[in-house]
């Protein structure tokens, strides 16, 4: 396995930021499009969003070296707007407070919530823009790097966005089941979201792997590591089968059976989506091979 400068902290960040942004969008979609189906899903999505992205950002800060020991150095992080990290810092600093205020408003928590309740629509519009930016940015961050040819493709942000949407929806659905287990019947309507986003994720992942096989020597090394090399058991079992195929099939059944599917399977499908989302990010980061220079 090639040595990556980034490890599990960055992988966790990429996953949590995507899931948090996706959960926000799931909450907004539920509140705007289907307020009478499931209040629980909108509530769960909004409550999970801010904390998930905040914990993810904490992982990002923990991965810093001098910037962790001498935190005032972090002020320099917005110095270079050519750097995706500078943009990420700006997007995250805006999105995290908006997500917390939105959660307070939607759930009427404290005086902040009572005040924010009057401005739910603007919070939903601004927050959705920032959530999309957060989810896409996690992919752009690694896609602009020409030191790792496998990542260096516009398919990466699309893949990460689709995965962020499905993992965010999974978080919101699990949260809704925790808040009110009887709501699980109504969740069938949202299973269609899983069907769509898992299909997009699977399709883009397939494109990425196939095209990487012929794109360059180094991208092919990475792709081969995933499909037949040392990372292949994890790729096929955790990402393809458990992370995409099984929840995809379960979600189709869930959508058509409308509430008749056992609760355990509904919750299980969402947990598998989360497992797949985390594994996908880990495998993409750890399979990145450097250019062959000599």
């Amino acid at each position, binding site marked *: 396995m090639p040595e990556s400068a980034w490890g599990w902290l960055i992988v966790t960040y990429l996953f949590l930021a995507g899931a948090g942004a996706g959960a926000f969008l799931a909450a907004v979609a539920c509140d705007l499009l289907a307020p009478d189906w499931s209040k629980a899903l909108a509530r769960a999505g909004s409550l999970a969003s801010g904390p998930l992205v905040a914990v993810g950002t904490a992982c990002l800060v923990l991965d*810093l070296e001098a*910037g962790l020991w001498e935190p005032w150095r972090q002020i*320099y*992080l917005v110095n*270079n707007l*050519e750097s995706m*990290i500078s943009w990420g810092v700006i997007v995250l600093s805006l999105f995290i407070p908006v997500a917390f205020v939105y959660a307070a408003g939607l759930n009427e928590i404290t005086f902040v919530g009572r005040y924010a309740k009057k401005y739910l629509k603007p919070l939903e519009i601004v927050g959705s823009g920032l959530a999309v930016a957060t989810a896409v940015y996690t992919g752009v961050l690694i896609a*602009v*790097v020409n030191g*790792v040819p496998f990542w260096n493709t516009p398919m990466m942000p699309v893949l990460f966005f689709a995965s962020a949407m499905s993992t965010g929806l999974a978080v919101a659905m699990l949260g809704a089941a925790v808040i009110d287990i009887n709501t699980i019947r109504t969740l069938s309507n949202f299973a269609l979201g899983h069907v769509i986003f898992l299909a997009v994720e699977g399709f883009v992942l397939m494109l990425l792997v196939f095209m990487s096989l012929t794109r360059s020597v180094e991208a092919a090394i990475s792709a081969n590591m995933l499909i037949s090399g040392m990372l292949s058991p994890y790729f096929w079992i955790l990402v393809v089968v458990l992370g995409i195929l099984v929840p995809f099939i379960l979600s189709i059944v869930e959508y058509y059976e409308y509430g008749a599917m056992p609760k355990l399977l509904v919750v299980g499908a969402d947990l598998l989506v989360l497992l797949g989302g985390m594994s996908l990010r880990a495998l993409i980061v750890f399979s990145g091979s450097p250019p062959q220079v000599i």
Partner: protein
Amino acid sequence: MPRYGIAIDTTRCVGCHACRVACQNQNGLEPSEAYNWIKELERGNFPSYSKRFVPVQCNHCENAPCQRVCPTGATYTTKEGVVLVNPKTCVGCKYCMEACPYKVRILEHKKGIVEKCRFCIEMVREGGIPACVATCPTGVRIFGDLDDPNSEISRFIAETGAQPLRADLNTRPKIFYKRS
């Protein structure tokens, strides 16, 4: 203002690693840390076998990917075209290490910052040459001004057709290699 570069004649390299040790001494590095390496390129099977040593270090790219991705602006290019890291503003996010195609940046855990070959710029500004160039017993490296057509390095590049590593990556490196 000069535009510094190094020409490397790989046909003269015997793989003694003196350049690496000189660099470590000059920059006060731990034995496990280095700003330059000697990579070994093996071809064929015995008896049709050859081995070539290729010294690798920061290429001080004119279009430096590490500088472009550095969020704090800690990575900068001096007026002599030398890419340096400001130890006071680097936060150690390691984005530059991912972005560098040549993988020649290292994390200095003690200082919490990312460092790399500095072309021994303090010595060079006082009229000296980098430690790796001065130390090499077989004269593999030539240091000089790429903008001066009469400099030894410019003549060497013109005569031998020395090329940078992976010119296709459009980073415009300033280290040129004579490969055969």
